[in-house]
């Protein structure tokens, strides 16, 4: 399980990321990606440090963080499974795939299993539209999902 970090620890690690990236033109998104990579989410404690480092208001930073689907307010499960729900995948039965996976994992979209093993998310297009329906498990792409592949995925996230 994720250890609870002290807020001073979060602040000092955030400050280091800001220091490294603040000279980029338009540094906020790279910094937020850096923070999410470091902590697995963008902790509340990091926001005032960013605001201070970039001379922005906390409201502005909050506005940016909450605008983008990628940035999480809380840590995700150990695995993140994204199921494509866009049109090309719909035409190949992504609805049924989603229903089946939700049932097998016992969670819905934007939810994490109680044991913290996996977070399930919809994604609108992975660019694998000629091999639909598709998914991404921890950054690995999977195409032409069928029952066999679904079972492999579920077994992997449960292991």
């Amino acid at each position, binding site marked *: 399980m994720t250890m609870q970090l002290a807020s001073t620890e979060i602040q000092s690690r955030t400050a280091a990321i800001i220091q490294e990236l603040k000279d980029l033109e338009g540094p906020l998104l790279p910094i937020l990606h850096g923070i999410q990579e470091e902590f697995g989410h963008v902790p509340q404690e990091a926001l005032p440090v960013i605001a201070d480092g970039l001379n922005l208001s906390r409201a502005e930073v909050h506005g940016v963080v909450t605008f983008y689907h990628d940035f999480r307010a809380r840590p995700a499960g150990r695995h993140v499974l994204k199921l494509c729900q866009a049109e090309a995948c*719909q035409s190949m039965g992504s609805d049924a795939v989603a229903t089946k996976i939700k049932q097998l994992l016992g969670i819905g979209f934007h939810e994490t299993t109680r044991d913290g093993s996996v977070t399930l998310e919809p994604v609108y297009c992975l660019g694998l539209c*000629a091999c639909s329906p598709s998914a991404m498990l921890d950054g690995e792409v999977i195409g032409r999902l069928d029952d066999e592949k679904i079972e492999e995925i579920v077994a992997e996230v449960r292991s």
Partner: protein
Amino acid sequence: MIPRIYIPGDSGALALGAEKVAKAIARELAERGVEAKIVRNGSRGAYFLEPMVEVATANGRVAYGPVKPSDVKSLFDCGFLTGGHHKRWLGAPDKIPFLAKQTRLTFARCGVIDPLSLDHYKAHGGLRGLQNAVAMAPADIVKQVTESGLRGRGGAGFPTGIKWKTVLDTTSDRKYIVCNADEGDSATFADRMIMEGDPFVLIEGMTIAGIATGATKGFVYIRSEYPHAVATMNRAVEVARKAGVLGVNVLGSPNAFDMEIRVGAGAYVCGEETSLLNSLEGKRGVVRAKPPLPAIQGLFGKPTVINNVISLASVPIIMDKGAAFYKDYGMGRSRGTIPIQIAGNVRHGGLFEAAFGMTLGEIVDDIGGGTASGRPVKAVQVGGPLGAYFPRALFDTPFDYEAFAAKDGLIGHAGLTVFDDTADMLKQARFAMEFCAIESCGKCTPCRIGSTRGVETIDRLAAGIEPEKNLALVTDLCNTMKFGSLCALGGFTPYPVMSSITHFPEDFKPAPARAAAE
């Protein structure tokens, strides 16, 4: 000579198991003590044949596909390193009908070369366009691009040369080239393929754009859903810098140009150019009102060329072979070639680059081979989530910006999603509104509120509540969204909705009637 084995590292091929195949081949080579070089190329785009493994033989390249890890042992037994016969044998890749019928200009090298070898790139005609450009006056480069007839391949179809001219003519201490690689439309993967399979062509195109307009800095904004493209582009930029293609003296000329790869954060609306600029600046990806045009006040308020990946990747061949060569392909005001992406429920899905002018029917039936499910084609959505659904009755529409507009549709980024007769068009119309509601940036009311009201109204239609009244309401709402939205998200969501209602009225009949009809 050590044999070369090409195994695609393209995301689409990886999604179909290319990594396992590569590992199996490496293991088999080691076990048999055979020496060979494995090259991770891009994909040629025939996804129904991926993972497609190729071997360079004395008689040219020989392809095998789709290869499964369990095929590897028998491939070696059949002598595939010298092109031996096997049940997966496909012969010379450029003779495979799906590939042989194409006109590969922008994608000429994609799937052929090692994406990160600048030597391969040069050996296959790379950098010739840039070499010509560094010896030319900026205005002449802009003129050549304008004369080629190249129009924005991201969807809007705006003439690329005219955009460049505005930036060239605007005086500023700093200008930018921004490449829109936020390819969020379902059914599109051309940008991803070129970034993974031939990244130098994009770098070359952006550098030419920089020299042509006086911009010295470029950004490629890639969506976060494309981690492989991000990695390949980052590595390619480093290679290009080391080789002096990027830097203070581009190819030894006095022109300076450098670029950075930036990653989006999962917002579809950031594919809209002004919203993308805000995102690059570190702001919420909210759409900006135009004017001012980005060409005059773009990134950080400076004159900015913002072009789609394919527009920029088409520039090197125009600068290499001339405007007339490129313009010679196509029809009407749609000149050159377009990478058509055939996706969804289709037998032969993949990327098909061709001159403008093929009919929708030829693409879906002849090239795509009909549906994967074997059922009749019911509808084809052209141009992504904001594109119209076309019925078979409109299959004679030629692939051309104006011809599609005349049928109340759009080419967009040239992605096609094929649906079989099990598709419920009311559900598709509802999804279009729902997607708009999820992805709306919230700046303008027709998009922010209209999309949510749209979902509710279509739900009432589905429930059979006052169908005539609600159908009229959806139509009116679509009209408001189309003419009252700031950008294409709210403005084009009516295309899939209205085309579903117009071409498939039976799916919108009240529930009892629908049940009776089934």
